[in-house]
């Protein structure tokens, strides 16, 4: 059997399905529902077995269309930084507020992706977010929590 990344993904999916199936069997159902034809754990149990079946087949059967990914050509660094910025954005958005964190998220993302035109970067972050906030909050009446703007008295 030829081992390639697709097979490894299938193996991981097989393990995941086995874990899912184990967890499905652990779902607590009401005593009167225990022997019912269908209860909260029935569908997940079928799903777990189906997952094992398809990933097992993918593991066993030959894979003529092997996909080769040239990892050396992939841009892991920038992608990683972008994900990290998104995580920091997610962590601070509630505490600091939508306007400041979103503007800073956009500004830093432009920078790390290689942009250096500061005026354009600024224009497409702070004023852009302000306009978008006005559209959501002012026009469409979609509530946006923003402790920072509230603190400086811009938002009620």
């Amino acid at each position, binding site marked *: 059997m030829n081992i390639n990344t697709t097979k490894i993904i299938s193996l991981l999916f097989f393990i995941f399905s086995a874990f899912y199936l184990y967890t499905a069997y652990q779902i607590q159902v009401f005593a009167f529902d225990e022997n019912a034809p269908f209860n909260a754990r029935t569908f997940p149990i079928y799903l777990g077995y189906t997952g094992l079946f398809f990933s097992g087949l993918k593991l066993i059967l030959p894979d003529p269309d092997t996909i080769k990914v040239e990892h050396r050509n*992939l841009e892991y660094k920038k992608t990683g930084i972008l994900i990290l910025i998104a995580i920091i954005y997610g962590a601070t958005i509630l505490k600091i507020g939508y306007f400041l964190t979103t503007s800073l998220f956009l500004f830093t993302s432009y920078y790390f992706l290689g942009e250096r035109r500061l005026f354009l970067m600024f224009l497409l972050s702070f004023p852009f977010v302000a306009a978008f906030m006005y559209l959501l909050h002012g026009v469409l009446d979609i509530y946006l929590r923003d402790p920072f703007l509230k603190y400086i008295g811009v938002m009620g």
Partner: protein
Amino acid sequence: MIEGILIGLTTALTFQNIFMVMIGCFFGTIIGMLPGLGPMTAIALMIPITYGFDPATGLILMAGVYYGAVFGGSTSSILLNAPGVPGTVATSFDGYPMAQQGKAGKALAIAAWSSFAGGTLSAIYLLFMAPSLSKVSLSFRSPDYFALMILGLTAIAAFSSKGQFLKAMMMVVLGLMLASVGQDSLSDITRFTFDNMNLTDGISFVLVVMATFAMSEALTIILKRNDPTAAAKQVSLTELGSIKINKEERGKMYKTIPRSSVIGFLIGVLPGAGATIASFLAYGMERNLVKDEEKEKFGKGSVNGLSAPETANNAACSGSFVPMLTLGIPGSGTTAVMLGALLGFGIQPGPRLYMTNPEIFWAVIMSMYIGMVILLILNLPLIPYIARILAVPKNYLIPLILFFSITGIYVMSFNNFDIYLMIGIAVVATFLRLYDFPMPPLILAFVLGGLMEENLRRSLLLSNGSWEFLWNRTLTVCIFATTILIVLWHIYKTLTKNKS
């Protein structure tokens, strides 16, 4: 029906809804032009905006985005030989050679008129077919619905996976597994939450769509060092030429459009098939039907070769609304996203939709006509300018896509956990995409997961736990037989491919 049409027209012709169709078509055209970013991404990015509107307006906006994205894909196929969406690959076969001959304007005009005619004709077919099918589908029972969902999931796995059926089926199972997280709809027992309160209500549909499409597509573009906007920078230098279509060319289109619209619509109605298969089939059929002299021109800038796939892919878009509006079962990934959005509005699409919410049902159908007219008005004179807008560098485009995705989740829940979960799912989806694991089956399965469990529950309870319900009704047997045929056809295709 006349009453329904009038209700639909009244709703669709309000200033707000016409404006929404225009915005949708414009935004969809821009996103659809970018190779890699298809209608699903465009619609997913629009979902947060639709929360501010009533359901009819929200759906009209999304429908406008859908048509716009399909047409936008055609534009990049013709001008850049870089199809924005798979459904417009066949358009590039004759559209791009025509553009290289200095007839880009003419090619765009043929595509615009064909799209308009295909979309309008198929909207007429939909107008007559949807109410009749709704009446028929009232006779459907739980086992039939369960069978139909299995058919839809198998079909989308078979058609969207480029020969990787097992991978697509794994994605279907993953989608169903994600849908099973949270409270059980009947007993309120929590499942797979691992005592995390944030998961009690399950994983949000918008979160999964944003993560697997918008965010993961943005990450893939960075990871693979693609620049979807690079080619667009050359467009401003391209001489588009005249957009006038002469009498002879019009004559060719008159013959091609009706037959391609029928094939496009019928393929669109089938679960899982959609615009890509419709456009290829229409192209192939047209090549077989034209005279030998015209056949020679195929691939070198044939009017028939360009008109056929363009008509068919737009007709298929309208066709794909049929199963969603009448059965409540989406036939494609894009309509699955729309179904999810409708469920978010608290509306259950299905056979009773046109009775319970006629303003939504008919307004969507009427907005298709309006959308087609707007696309024609918008695209013909404005395409060169829209194409220039695409020269926005990816350094700006990618953060903006991420921004729209995260904002979409933030305004829904005001919860950090959802943002982390979305980033996590997006990272996994990006990795899976690298190895050709298709995402549309995952979305369709995620949307159908709850409904599927519900119908299986009813079927098993009614048959006292026996699986006899699978063969007790002729309709159920027919649907399962079709599913088996699709699987067998796929196995046969794989075996013959391996031999060759």
